[in-house]
């Protein structure tokens, strides 16, 4: 709430005085080239991270589902491994791109790609997206796997009798039945890409945001805590809050629908 109030004021860096400036902070934010540039990157980042972490999660879950069909002890084991995985995966992912010891950077070098994470814009974006996807896969995997497991075995068997193509069955029976889970995850992943990737970005850009890709959340932090532009930062965070509100609204609408669906 304080953010909403601050967003209408121009404060001096030491917080002694504040002038009411109305929507100026919002207009500044929304018309600044840099803000729009960051917003564009955030959009691309969100789409790519959401898409790849869902797609890869689905791929892995579908494979795992084939393997563990019926064996519940294996399932519990797999799920508990994946439950502790995300934080560890985050660390490992970060290490992969370390400029000096990162295996990924070395591997890229073999292919003639001189990766300069933190310096080259594209390389940094690539590392950020990869680590963010990598970190989110286990989470998606668990949800998709349990979604797959909750599809009755006999429905799949009926489909096996009705349709000889494995891919056809996946497309026409499995995927539609997974839709509730997928939609839920879509919202979760978008929220994740927008907000929870803060830590990853922070480590990768290491305060050298100047020429590096950052997301809107990171910009709020930069402007507020580094740039001391409390009002502008607050305005930006209010915009972000609105986005969250919209996402949450869709999610609730959907949960309602889902209750009817079952």
């Amino acid at each position: 709430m304080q953010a909403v109030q601050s967003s209408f004021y121009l404060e001096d860096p030491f917080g002694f005085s504040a002038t009411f400036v109305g929507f100026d902070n919002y207009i500044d934010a929304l018309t600044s080239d840099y803000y729009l540039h960051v917003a564009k990157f955030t959009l691309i980042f969100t789409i790519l991270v959401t898409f790849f972490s869902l797609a890869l999660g689905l791929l892995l879950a579908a494979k795992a589902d084939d393997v563990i069909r019926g064996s519940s002890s294996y399932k519990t084991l797999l799920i508990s491994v994946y439950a502790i995985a995300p934080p560890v995966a985050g660390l490992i992912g970060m290490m992969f791109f370390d400029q000096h010891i990162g295996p990924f950077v070395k591997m890229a070098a073999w292919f003639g790609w001189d990766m300069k994470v933190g310096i080259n814009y594209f390389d940094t974006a690539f590392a950020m997206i990869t680590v963010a996807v990598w970190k989110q896969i286990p989470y998606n995997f668990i949800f998709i796997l349990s979604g797959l497991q909750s599809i009755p075995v006999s429905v799949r068997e009926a489909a096996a009798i009705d349709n000889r193509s494995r891919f056809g069955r996946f497309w026409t029976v499995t995927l539609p039945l997974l839709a509730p889970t997928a939609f839920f995850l879509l919202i979760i992943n978008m929220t994740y890409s927008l907000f929870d990737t803060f830590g990853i970005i922070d480590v990768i850009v290491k305060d050298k945001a100047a020429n590096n890709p950052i997301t809107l959340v990171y910009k709020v932090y930069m402007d507020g805590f580094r740039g001391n532009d409390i009002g502008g930062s607050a305005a930006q965070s209010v915009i972000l809050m609105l986005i969250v509100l919209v996402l949450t609204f869709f999610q609730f609408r959907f949960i309602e629908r889902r209750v009817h669906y079952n």
Partner: protein
Amino acid sequence: MAAIEISSVSKSYTGDALAVDNVDIEIEDGEFIVLVGPSGCGKSTLLRMVAGLETITEGEVKIGGKVVNKKDPAERDIAMVFQNYALYPHMTVYNNLAYGLKNRGTPKAEIAARVNEAARMLELEPYLERKPRALSGGQRQRVAMGRAIVRKPAAFLFDEPLSNLDAKLRVSMRGEIKHLQKRLGTTSIYVTHDQLEAMTLADRLVVLNGGKIEQIGTPLDVYHKPASTFVANFIGSPAMNLVEGKLTGGQLMIGDNSMQFSSAPPADGPVTVGIRPEDLQPTTGTGIKARLDYVEELGATRLAHCMTDGERLTAALSPEIPLADELTFAVLPEKVHFYDHATGKRLSNA
């Protein structure tokens, strides 16, 4: 439509015990075969091996003369009706019926014709645009049947399709399935643990126990000549009385009661004697003496549970017959079944 041959088929899941043990069944084209047996006897496993949903550990399954062991379920030209119906929850009734045809490249017009015909047969026409969740259990069951019918497959496979319905609906659907099967003439294998359902539906019954076939035969054959004490006990309700007896020459002793047989009985020494409850009739003459324990009234008949020399005997009597504490039962000699005391196998008698 096709004959089905099941030759020396076995199934082991984990390597140790056999869920299905060396089963041979030859099913004629158009025949209605019912697999019956207690829970866990391997009925579903056997059916699912025919369907292709379970691999065949040993032996061969032929449908229409062709070995199908290696074929996918969709390539076997069979349709299956599952216990929980297994309808596609996200598809309308129409699409549930049409799905199998679409995937086989049937022309749209023909799909529509077949779906509508099946819907008419099963009185599903008003529900074609509904999703399965908006249907009652009985209606879902019909959709499951419809999904099988529209395909016009070589064989129908049923795995306890009626066990989720209430008793009354079960009886009427039972009649309908029988009727449909006769009308379509499609070879069918039907799994149930309900012996009454088995008796009423089957052209031939296959009684399974512990993965092995106990007996194959027409319902009347199986009822009147159970091949083992297991079948005798399993088929028929109330179950056949099985008591210990002793044969010496032409005389059978059950406790202190004796019966004289004119034709030579099949064995000497201890035997298991089987008598159906309805074959025990009270007499004023000599016979098996028993003390009345308790009575169950079923309306048309009355079950008199009695004790004779520590053995339990149940008689199905007409309600008109007056009951006394001490009863004497007469049995026609040809209604007495003899079983090997040790193996439980039927001893042939005249």
